């Protein structure tokens, strides 16, 4: 069941098309990575989902309603946007006490979320004295105060140290195990690759991929390298089948967009001996970079 439904979502800022007819779904109980380079339109999309920015076209629904229609929104949706939106002179505890009243949560919930994000000892310090990582944790505490079913997190790993990133990953996993639906944005695929089930990838305002992580990598191209004394013969045979190839040295042949099975079968048919074979898949990061490359970059690849 889709908890988040985005349909034809579009936002123009003057002549700039920040988000261009984007549609995607996030299933209940899943963790989806919302990926794309900086400026791809991720934050604008999240802000439209949260009713902070009015879409130029299209709809963004959470549980079938627009955010502004939700009663008690903090009990339905928790969001972390930028890490700096706290009043610097207020303590973390006071900030969360305010959020707790808005969310109709019990005062005890403040201590619970402080403990959950590891800020119990620093709760009575002013937020202005917090590090970026601590502000991210406080943002998460605020998002969790109403114990919401859906979490929308914009670059929550920013400012976290490696230990913090691991902590975040475990927190998100445990929340998903308890049926929470999470959409987490990042401009670094590796940051979320170990956490997410699915990915939604934006580039320059457009949706470029929406799939599971496995589907994303299975679509990745493979490079098959074989060592054979008759490399040029095999090259012309593969060339006849439109497989791009490249000779490396005297006896290595590199073939793209094909499989080792195909190359091996063809060689056997022609009686070409193969002494050695290696297969390399493009990794996830390369797939991501390729999907989000600019035209110029794509041309040079």
């Amino acid at each position: 069941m889709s908890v988040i439904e985005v349909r034809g979502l579009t936002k123009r800022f003057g002549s700039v098309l920040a988000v261009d007819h984007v549609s995607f779904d996030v299933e209940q109980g899943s963790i989806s990575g919302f990926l794309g380079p900086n400026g791809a339109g991720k934050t604008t999309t999240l802000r439209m989902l949260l009713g902070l920015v009015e879409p130029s076209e299209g709809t963004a629904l959470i549980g079938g309603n627009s955010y502004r229609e939700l009663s008690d929104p903090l009990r339905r949706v928790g969001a972390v946007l930028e890490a700096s939106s706290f009043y610097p002179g207020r303590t973390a505890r006071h900030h969360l006490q305010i959020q707790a009243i808005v969310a109709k949560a019990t005062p005890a919930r403040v201590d619970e979320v402080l403990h959950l994000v590891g800020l119990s000892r620093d709760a009575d310090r002013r937020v202005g004295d917090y590090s970026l990582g601590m502000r991210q944790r406080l943002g998460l505490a605020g998002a969790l105060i109403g114990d919401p079913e859906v979490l929308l997190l914009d670059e929550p790993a920013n400012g976290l140290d490696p230990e913090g990133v691991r902590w975040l990953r475990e927190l998100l996993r445990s929340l998903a195990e308890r049926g929470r639906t999470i959409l987490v944005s990042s401009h670094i695929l590796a940051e979320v690759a170990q956490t997410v089930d699915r990915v939604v990838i934006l580039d320059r305002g457009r949706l470029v991929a929406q799939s599971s992580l496995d589907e994303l990598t299975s679509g990745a191209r493979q490079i098959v390298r074989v060592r054979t004394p008759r490399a040029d013969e095999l090259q012309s045979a593969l060339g006849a089948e439109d497989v791009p190839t490249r000779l490396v040295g005297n006896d290595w042949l590199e073939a793209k967009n094909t499989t080792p099975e195909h190359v091996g079968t063809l060689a056997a048919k022609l009686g070409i001996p193969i002494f050695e074979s290696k297969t390399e898949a493009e990794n996830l990061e390369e797939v991501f970079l390729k999907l989000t490359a600019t035209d110029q970059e794509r041309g040079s690849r």
Partner: protein
Amino acid sequence: MIRLIRVELLKLRTIRLPFGLLAAAAGLTALVTVLKASRAGSGGRRMSIAPLYTVHGLTSVLTSTDFAMIMALVFGVIVSTGEFRHSTATTTYLGTPNRVQVLVAKAVAAAVGGALFGAVAAAITTGVALIFVSSKGYPLVLGGATIARYALGAVLGSALLAAVGVAVGSLIRSQVVAIVTVFAWGFIVEQVIGGLYNAAQPYLPYTAARTLAGATLDGGTAPLPFLAATALLVAVAVLASVVAAATTVRQDVA
């Protein structure tokens, strides 16, 4: 709505700025009041104050609440612009997507806080005036009811100006620009308009608030009656809020 007003009041109680503003308003009111009371009957040529045994002299000291009233207006501006200065509007609107409700809650909370500015200032001016009058052995030339009405006017005027400030801040959003605007409005625009067109004085919002607290007008112009001045300030607060709700409050929060 009660919950939202509670939230806005808690927001104000958990930061230092409102207390700093209130302390500044109280300190300056005390300084001005004591200076005026001690120089009453013997002031300088540009700013002479009648002796405290005259209605004019006593009123002049009692109405030193005007600085605290403009500080209440500034306080209201800060209540709304602070959300944009620190990007906390995002958090506020996530909790309460109905932005008009947020605006109303802020106006009410600011009015409660603003009333405190008026109350503190009225307590200071009344206390200082009474101390000077009794220490000099003068008769009290204004009745208790009049003095109480001036104090009530200061409280009411400050509360309503703070609500106006919330609306002005919602319209302008930039804290510095909004604060400069309200100071310029109160100390320059209203003074110039009121000075050039005496008959317009009673209808100028800050001047109307001052007359609620007992201030007299140039050229012997009669101030608006208490209820009419109150109604004028309520109307300004409502009108500015409606304009803000229909325009800037709806804008994207990025």
